[in-house]
């Protein structure tokens, strides 16, 4: 279970998160919606340990461990995965090698044996097939020369291979056509189970049609201003955020 209490964070002394309280029980998918600049991406970065954000108040525990005191790689080993809104290009780094290095680092942290190249490729090929990704994406350099949609799919591929306990999807749906969107949603749905939870950051109802959340939270001005069921997303699609924000202020 992810438990966020009174979380405040700033970047370059500018406060972005101003007291977030949020609980995601094991096995649940929660959506975070909200206007641009409300702090949605910051929340994802802070949870995954990006160092240029300073946590100024609050606590985050994940399965009873203090997440905020951990290095990014230790959070990943603990099961946290952030699907980047703008995935980073790594020229000169082969995608398959990158994925295998990451998987083996996490396996090592769990005291499990490492996969050799052959074992890994078998696993990776099965996942690329399931995500309808061409095999050559494994041979290319990480995200280099990938289209926007390919980059997002590559994030989902990483998630499928690393099998996190908590996936944070930061606008993974943006820039995707309807087929790709369905593939991404299916990728997340495939991981759903009693030990998996997800925070889905999105602007659009569209993704949530395929990836139905247990709860929907609206983030505005660095605070959660409203929480509801899946119907809240539909309501926002119709009425927008303006009324909600005015109501909260």
């Amino acid at each position: 279970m992810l438990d966020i209490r009174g979380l405040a964070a700033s970047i370059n002394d500018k406060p972005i998160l101003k007291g977030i309280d949020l609980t995601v029980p094991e096995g649940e998918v929660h959506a975070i919606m909200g206007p641009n600049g409300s702090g949605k991406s910051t929340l994802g970065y802070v949870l995954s340990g990006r160092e240029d954000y300073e946590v100024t108040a609050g606590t985050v525990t994940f399965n009873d461990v203090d997440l905020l005191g951990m290095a990014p790689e230790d959070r990943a080993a603990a099961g946290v995965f952030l699907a980047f809104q703008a995935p980073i290009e790594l020229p000169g780094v082969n995608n398959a090698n990158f994925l295998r290095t990451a998987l083996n680092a996490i396996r090592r942290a769990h005291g499990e044996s490492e996969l050799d190249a052959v074992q890994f490729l078998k696993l990776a090929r099965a996942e690329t097939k399931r995500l309808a990704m061409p095999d050559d994406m494994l041979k290319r350099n990480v995200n280099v020369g990938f289209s926007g949609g390919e980059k997002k799919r590559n994030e989902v591929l990483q998630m499928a291979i690393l099998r996190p306990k908590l996936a944070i999807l930061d606008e993974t749906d943006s820039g995707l056509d309807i087929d790709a969107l369905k593939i991404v949603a299916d990728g997340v749905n495939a991981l759903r189970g009693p030990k998996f939870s997800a925070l889905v950051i999105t602007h659009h109802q569209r993704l949530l049609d395929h990836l139905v959340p247990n709860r929907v939270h609206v983030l505005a001005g660095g605070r959660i201003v409203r929480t509801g069921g899946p119907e809240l997303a539909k309501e926002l699609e119709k009425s927008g955020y303006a009324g909600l924000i005015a109501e909260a202020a």
Partner: protein
Amino acid sequence: MTTGAIAFLERYQSLIGRLPGDSALRAAAAAAFRTAGLPGGTQQRRIEAWKYTSLRPVAETAFKPDAAPRHEAETILTGLPLLDAPRLVFVDGAFRPDLSVMPTAGFARFAEQPDFGTLSWPDREPMVALNTMLAEDGAALHVPAGYDAGVVQLISIAASDADFHPRHVIRLGKGSQLTLVEVSAGQGTYLLNTVAEFHIADGAHLTHIRLQDEAASAFHISTTYADVEAGATYDSFTLNLGAQLSRTEVHAQLTGAGAIAHLNAAQLLAGSQHADFTSVVGHTAPGCTSRQTVKNVLAGRSRGVFQGRIEVARDAQKTDGYQMNQALLLSPYAEVDSKPELEIFADDVKCSHGATVGELDAEQMFYLRSRGIPDAEARSILVRAFLAEALDAVADDTIRFRLEAAVERWWERQKA
């Protein structure tokens, strides 16, 4: 004049009459060296071409040319990443037929048929003057017109605390091909001061790969002259890993229409290593292309130097010149000096140059770590990636794998 320079001149005096080849040329070189001395090693005038590299440590080292070898050349040779191909092996500057595998291209020893070539400038380059004064051996290779000589390895092994001045001349006839793989390694405190020249006739193709993996306390100076004629290609890649001080100097002249020169390099330095890559590319004929990417990875208190100059003559219209120097600084104490220069007298040319200096990218580091890859491993992945892009310039897979393996060994040495 420093003691170091005086010792070289005294040796020359004692060897007059016993050195092979044109004695007048040697005397002129000695006169030039007496005037110039070792760059940075004297209190005399400053030499602009040696602005960032001082040979004072060379001047202050007493080399012992007559001492017995302190190390086993055969052992050092066995440890090298050799290819299954002909090889010309030089130990302490002298050709060793017993360790060599003869190439099919015409080969002659400098010691037997001295050939100083026609491209060098002992009066302009002090280290070329020193080489011309003291050269005793080297390789002359001749690839006949239209012939593909395949791969030839040119190997230098140093086993004594001495100074060596090999002199190589390589001629490729029209439309011929050669891949020359130069490897230099050794043990001890020595100076390897090589001068090589390449004549690449019309339509010929020379691929020149160099792996400099000298002993940690060695000095490595290499001056190369290339004359690239019409439609010919000089495609070179240099990997500098060893030596306390190295200077790789290349003068490439594109003298025939449509000639091509690639002068790519990577330098990995740690501790207090100093490596200088200096190049002058002269475009004297129209429609020629030059490409140059030099990458430095600098750790510890190391210092990397890049000086690149593109000269475009008045008649060299439609010149296409590109030069890039990139440095990755892994420590706050590492230093890079970059001096790209363009000198253009033609009016219809495309020339560009650039330099980047940086640390590891914070976003890339976070991306890797967010996937569970520990900090040290993430750093190593990004540095290797930076180098992989440089090594991609080496088209031959087998040779590139050897260079990658040499880079891996360099990493292992840093960890130890």
